């Protein structure tokens, strides 16, 4: 008997799946490996112009006037617009001043040099500690750079510490991290009498449409946003941004489409980052190993994103502490500090990686002090049963029992030990996520058997296009490559923004609903000719019954098919060269849960991606500001260092299948615990902790006490 088509309102994932949960090659892989895929930065609309932005070379300044006339005199230049009209205050190095559009990149470069800016430099401050100090240059006129947060206390922390058998303390710091997708932010925008079309490198086509409509005072219905392919976002690519709005204004002035992609330099300055953190942690446990008291003070900078509402960690500098652990007595005090630097934005699992780094470091140090195994200590104090299971599975896979040795600083002194020390560490992650109920999808079945699924979502590299094909193929009994998936257009039914690990749990139910509705319609028509099951082998015959007609059906996200709340744990093994300070991550074992897996291979790729990004956070990445000039010193890939091919460890991934929970996203949790696990492994190897990310050779050697003092000037 064929599977019955579910009745309306009783949508569920099939008990047995043929495609869902297995591995399907990315359906757009061929377009990507041949160069055929058109990214936002590849768009060459008819008559397109090149666009570029002039940025402030001052970290703070009062701008009196911007003279664009000389730029318009440059041969090939067609349009020039100021970023804002009238006098204004610049608050960070790299803030947008004006933009130009012209017939070549060269013309734009010449035009930017020709623009005359009349400005008075203002005092500035770019370092967190400097900005907190009395008399620091004010970043905002309306609020202090730093308003100490109000302590929040639960239980009785001071008394509780007195009851602890062991207490550890540490001052943990994490740097400002830059997203740096390989394709920079940007758009091609065409503004004609018919409205605006933007080909955007975005994580949210709807957010670009709404942002452009608002900024340009157009009806949302007259703005179309297209994102067929885009080169990564990681949280920073929502809305049109200043660049998108300027591109639109240039297009209107020029009467031609304008492609305005940021340069790598631009990318490092003005379109988001992960705030820094300076975490003072005190953690205590009772003699039986139960966590008992936690005291936490933290500040961090979100650049100019902090300050206006800095108390409590404005701008994303607030950390969820004591993270995943149950502690009865907790006191936290957090604040953001404003500096003259580009504003923070969402960045893959906002606030979680720094929280994990601080908390998991304290956990390991406390385990060492108590003389207990760090994995057992976590299982004891982390109330989440899934993570408890993940620790057990991961420890087995990793060989934790064989590899873990209690750190022994004395062993370092032994000359026979050799320069290479190995260590292991682990850490856990937690993330919410969940589906967006406003997600729709539409399906069209043609009489030749071909199928189109259309959804106004964008595939940011996570495999969303393929996920849609997988779900549709499952319903129709077809192969994923038989499904034509069209995404990345605001003319399609609304899709979610791709952030917060919500895309897969948003689109999967909507596509399941739409395809189920379509199949029901097809079955009704085909059933007239005695085809009892239109799927699979009967598909072509059933579709032929459509004759000159088609099946067109829509669907919406439905409850019960997806869920939120994904955890994960990671184990790291490192080798540290104690003479030159280099950390080599040799192995990562990652155990994650994400409910029902839709496409296994792309899920695993997401975890690889989280780990590789976490590796960079652990060892290489740091925005460096110069306190004297106020500039970002490393607005490039030369000294803002990303994990490279030679740095990436062997990675073993274990996915806990829990189809009964429904579909849950995986993008964020995969990156949360990596840096903490690596930092713990380094501490385990050295017998001393490096409390500051990134863990560079300089910091390793300093922790080992090998660095001579500076020569007095």
């Amino acid at each position, binding site marked *: 008997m064929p599977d019955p088509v579910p009745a309306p309102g009783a949508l569920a994932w099939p008990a047995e799946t043929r495609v869902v949960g297995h591995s399907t090659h990315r359906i757009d892989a061929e377009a990507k490996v*041949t160069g055929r895929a058109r990214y936002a930065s590849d768009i060459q609309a008819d008559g397109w112009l090149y666009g570029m932005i002039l940025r402030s070379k001052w970290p703070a300044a009062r701008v009196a006037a911007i003279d664009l006339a000389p730029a318009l005199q440059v041969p090939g230049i067609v349009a020039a617009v100021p970023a804002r009209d009238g006098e204004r205050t610049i608050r960070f190095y790299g803030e947008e001043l004006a933009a130009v559009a012209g017939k070549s990149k060269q013309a734009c470069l010449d035009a930017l040099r020709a623009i005359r800016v009349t400005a008075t430099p203002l005092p500035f401050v770019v370092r967190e500690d400097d900005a907190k100090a009395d008399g620091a240059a004010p970043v905002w006129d309306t609020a202090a750079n730093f308003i100490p947060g109000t302590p929040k206390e639960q239980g009785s922390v001071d008394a509780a510490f007195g009851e602890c058998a062991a207490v550890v303390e540490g001052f943990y710091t994490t740097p400002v991290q830059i997203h740096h997708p390989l394709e920079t932010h940007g758009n091609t925008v065409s503004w004609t009498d018919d409205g605006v079309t933007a080909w955007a490198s975005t994580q949210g086509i709807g957010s670009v449409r709404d942002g452009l409509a608002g900024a340009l005072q157009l009806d949302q219905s007259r703005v179309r946003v297209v994102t067929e392919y885009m080169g990564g976002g990681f949280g920073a690519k929502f809305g049109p941004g200043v660049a998108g709005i300027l591109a639109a204004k240039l297009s209107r002035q020029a009467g031609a489409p304008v492609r305005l992609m940021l340069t790598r330099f631009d990318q490092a300055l003005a379109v988001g980052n992960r705030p820094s953190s300076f975490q003072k942690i005190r953690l205590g446990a009772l003699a039986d190993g139960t966590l008992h008291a936690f005291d936490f003070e933290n500040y961090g900078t979100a650049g100019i994103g902090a300050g206006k509402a800095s108390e409590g960690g404005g701008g994303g500098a607030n950390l969820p502490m004591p993270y995943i652990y149950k502690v009865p007595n907790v006191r936290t005090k957090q604040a953001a500090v404003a500096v003259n630097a580009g504003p923070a934005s969402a960045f893959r699992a906002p606030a979680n990686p720094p929280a994990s780094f601080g908390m998991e470091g304290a956990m390991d140090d406390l385990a060492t002090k108590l003389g207990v195994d760090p994995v057992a200590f976590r299982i004891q104090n982390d109330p989440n049963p899934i993570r408890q299971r993940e620790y057990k599975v991961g420890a087995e896979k990793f060989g934790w029992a064989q590899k873990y040795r209690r750190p022994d600083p004395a062993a370092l002194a032994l000359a026979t030990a050799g320069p290479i020390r190995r260590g292991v560490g682990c850490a856990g992650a937690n993330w919410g996520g969940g589906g967006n109920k406003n997600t729709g999808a539409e399906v069209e079945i043609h009489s030749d058997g071909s199928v189109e699924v259309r959804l106004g979502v964008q595939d940011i590299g996570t495999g969303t296009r393929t996920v849609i094909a997988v779900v549709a193929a499952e319903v129709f009994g077809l192969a994923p490559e038989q499904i034509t998936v069209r995404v990345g257009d605001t003319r399609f039914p609304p899709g979610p923004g791709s952030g917060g690990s919500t895309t897969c749990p948003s689109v999967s139910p909507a596509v399941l609903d739409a395809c189920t509705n379509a199949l029901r319609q097809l079955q009704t028509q085909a059933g007239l000719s005695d085809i009892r099951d239109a799927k699979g082998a009967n598909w072509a015959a059933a579709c032929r019954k459509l004759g000159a007609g088609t099946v067109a059906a829509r669907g919406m996200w439905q409850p019960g098919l997806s869920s939120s709340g994904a955890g994960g744990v990671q184990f790291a093994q490192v080798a540290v060269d104690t003479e030159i300070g280099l950390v080599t991550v040799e192995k990562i074992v990652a155990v994650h849960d994400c409910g029902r897996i839709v496409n296994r291979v792309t899920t695993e790729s997401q975890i*690889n991606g989280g780990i590789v990004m976490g590796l960079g956070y652990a060892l290489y990445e740091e925005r460096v500001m110069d306190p004297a000039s106020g500039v970002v010193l490393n607005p490039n890939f030369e000294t803002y260092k990303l994990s490279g*091919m030679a740095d990436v460890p062997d990675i073993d991934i274990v996915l806990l299948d829990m189809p009964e929970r429904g579909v849950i996203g995986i993008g964020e949790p995969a990156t949360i615990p990596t840096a903490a696990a690596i930092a713990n492994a380094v501490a385990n190897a050295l017998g001393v902790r490096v409390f500051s990310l990134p863990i560079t050779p300089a910091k390793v050697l300093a922790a080992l006490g090998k660095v001579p003092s500076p020569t007095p000037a």
Partner: protein
Amino acid sequence: MNAPDPNPDDAPLLGTHSRRAFLKGFGAITISAAASQTQAVAAELEKLNAEKIVGPGPVPVTLRVNGETLSLSLEPRVTLLDALRNVSTYTGTKEGCDRATCGACTVLLDGAPIYSCQMLAIEAQGHAITTVEGLAQDGKLTPVQKAFAERDATMCGYCTPGFVMAATALLKENPHPTPADVRRACSGNLCRCGTQPRVVEAVLQAAGGAADNGTPGDLHA
């Protein structure tokens, strides 16, 4: 187009008027499959240009891309990447940094991988340039492209053409690489999505070997 042109149209730019007139006949962008003829023109151009100062305004530049000839009018300061992506339509070659640090712009110059962002188009004349669009023949993916697709060595895909070019060059020089060889050969390419483990597997698969991806320590072992 924005600086005073010391070689106005009627000046003998390339030695003779007739040569200039002939080249102008190619138009701004002309693609011709008559490679032998145009290669000879490129060689002649190179010789005629030698020891002559051209620019800073636009000058004729002839590039040989994927076996086809591209006749462009470019300022000397235009990079090969800019000429491919912005002046022409070879957008498979990506711009990630424009500073020879990310590898997204990797093309093959006479078979060797180079960063097209840090080479002037005018310098690339007379060389065979291969972009990602020039790999698959008659729609058939190369083993490297096929393996990248099958091993999920592409995520957002923006870095992928550069990795494919670097890997293609590696396998030509070293058909049986170790994981460490692959990591080394692709160390000039960055990926922010995290495809690196898959890239190692894909290149080893393309080489017909096992798909163990090795560890960083292998590099210096």
